[in-house]
């Protein structure tokens, strides 16, 4: 049973990690928490349904198209919720993202209907690992997610383009002044954020079906992952996501199947009280 749970928690954790990473990117780019990140997950999942079942694209092409579309969604989202409000108080942007989260759910309902939808997995069947069994889709999810997350991590931390994006995130005024096209940089960050979360949704779709509400609790747990990992830290988002996945699954099996969400959030509060800055802390301190 333990093995079974470990594998399941790894797969769930990596999906939380993908949503969390998307949140962190937006946080770093513009300093606000995106409450509609979970809805990116949902959109990615619906895109998977449309691309594979309605349009009949092969899985590889569907994945690529989904990534592309989600990037586009990110850019549009950037221009609607963030750009017009970039100069006002950050809480107004947060409210705007709450509004967006409601609107996105409704748009999805109008387009795809209210019923949950089933999506075919990329690889069918189950794999047996000793006494544990797992759907191949889980393994694919872990693989694709890990690759994508690594790629984005390298892009941000190790490449020059990544430094430009970071610079813009840290000080837009100065960035504009030295000649960084700020709109492009923030837009690109949103695109990457939506892309990674959306692909997470696409991978998740065959596992848990697609519903318009799937983003809600996943988004909140991913948010917990962001905080536990350390606000603003990309590594933190990944580690935090895995931790949340772990607590979620094991609390369900060994403590209480019904209090498991509450336990996840209890861990969040405990983690905050013990180590408010999270595992990887914030790099930038406030000077008085």
């Amino acid at each position, binding site marked *: 049973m333990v093995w079974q749970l470990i594998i399941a928690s790894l797969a769930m954790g990596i999906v939380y990690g993908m949503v969390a990473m998307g949140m962190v990117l937006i946080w770093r780019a513009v300093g606000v928490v995106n409450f509609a990140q979970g809805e990116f997950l949902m959109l990615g999942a619906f895109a998977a349904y449309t691309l594979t079942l309605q349009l009949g694209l092969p899985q590889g092409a569907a994945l690529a198209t989904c990534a592309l579309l989600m990037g586009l969604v990110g850019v549009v989202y950037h221009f609607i919720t963030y750009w017009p409000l970039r100069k006002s108080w950050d809480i107004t942007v947060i409210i705007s993202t709450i509004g967006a989260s409601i609107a996105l759910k409704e748009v999805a309902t109008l387009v795809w209907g209210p019923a949950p939808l089933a999506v075919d997995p990329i690889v069918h069947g189950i794999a047996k690992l000793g006494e544990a069994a797992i759907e191949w889709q889980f393994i694919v999810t872990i693989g694709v997610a890990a690759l994508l997350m690594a790629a984005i991590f390298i892009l941000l931390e190790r490449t*020059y*383009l990544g*430094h*430009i994006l*970071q*610079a813009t*995130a*840290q*000080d837009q*005024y*100065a*960035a*504009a*002044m*030295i*000649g*960084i*096209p700020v709109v492009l940089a923030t837009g690109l960050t949103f695109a990457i954020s939506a892309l990674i979360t959306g692909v997470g949704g696409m991978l998740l779709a065959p596992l848990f079906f697609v519903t318009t509400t799937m983003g809600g609790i996943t988004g909140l747990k991913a948010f917990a992952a962001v905080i536990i990992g350390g606000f603003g830290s990309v590594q933190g988002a990944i580690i935090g996501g895995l931790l949340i996945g772990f607590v979620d699954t094991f609390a369900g099996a060994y403590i209480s199947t019904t209090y498991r969400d509450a336990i996840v959030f209890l861990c969040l509060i405990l983690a905050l009280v013990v180590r408010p800055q999270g595992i990887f802390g914030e*790099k*930038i*301190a406030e*000077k008085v």
Partner: protein
Amino acid sequence: MLKINNLYAHYGNIEALHGVSLEVGNKDIVALIGSNGAGKTTLLRAISSLVTRNGEICYNGENIEKQSPRYIAKAGLLHVPEGRHVFPGLTVQQNLEVGSVSWRGIKNASVAEDLERVFSLFPRLEERRKQYAWSLSGGEQQMLAIGRAIMGRPKLLMLDEPSMGLAPKVIDELFVKILEINSMGVPILLVEQNALLAMEVSQKVYILEGGRIVLQGDSKDIINDARVKEAYLGKLKEKVV
């Protein structure tokens, strides 16, 4: 090199500059002084296209009134902002590299030579190249901000209150560097609260009040102008200096 004619600038509906004209020659250091809220920062922002503006801004004979901040930075008009604005979460070296974005875009061109140039000008920065910018002292951050502008291969450098909050010794060192940069052939437009200092290093001075140029001339003459003494040097100066 830079010729501004009848420039207006707005924050929303507020007009902060009411028709400013000014000229920076090919090798000059030009000082711009004036009291708080006179519009000095606004003027620099207007030149960099960071506020709404209208009026003629001729740079090397081209009117750049309608251009974007990126275009202007690309053209070599670089601005070291008031309050430094370094990128706190990047290291010193990363800050400098990002500074070259105006001419190299996002390509991975070699910037080693440019880095060398900055490090030879500010050896302190070389010692700290791996340190995050937020952890630098005020003076070091100011050097970094200037260094970052130099990475953009400036043809004209605009400095906004570089001495603010710096220790006297650092100010001295900094101004030596500014003169050094100027001697490499980069004209400088310098905004300073420390009027005496500004007039000492510059060839030409403009005095800005209430969004208008109220006085201009050679630094040597203006420094002795009684009105200027009264308004910008104050009694304190006389007592101590």
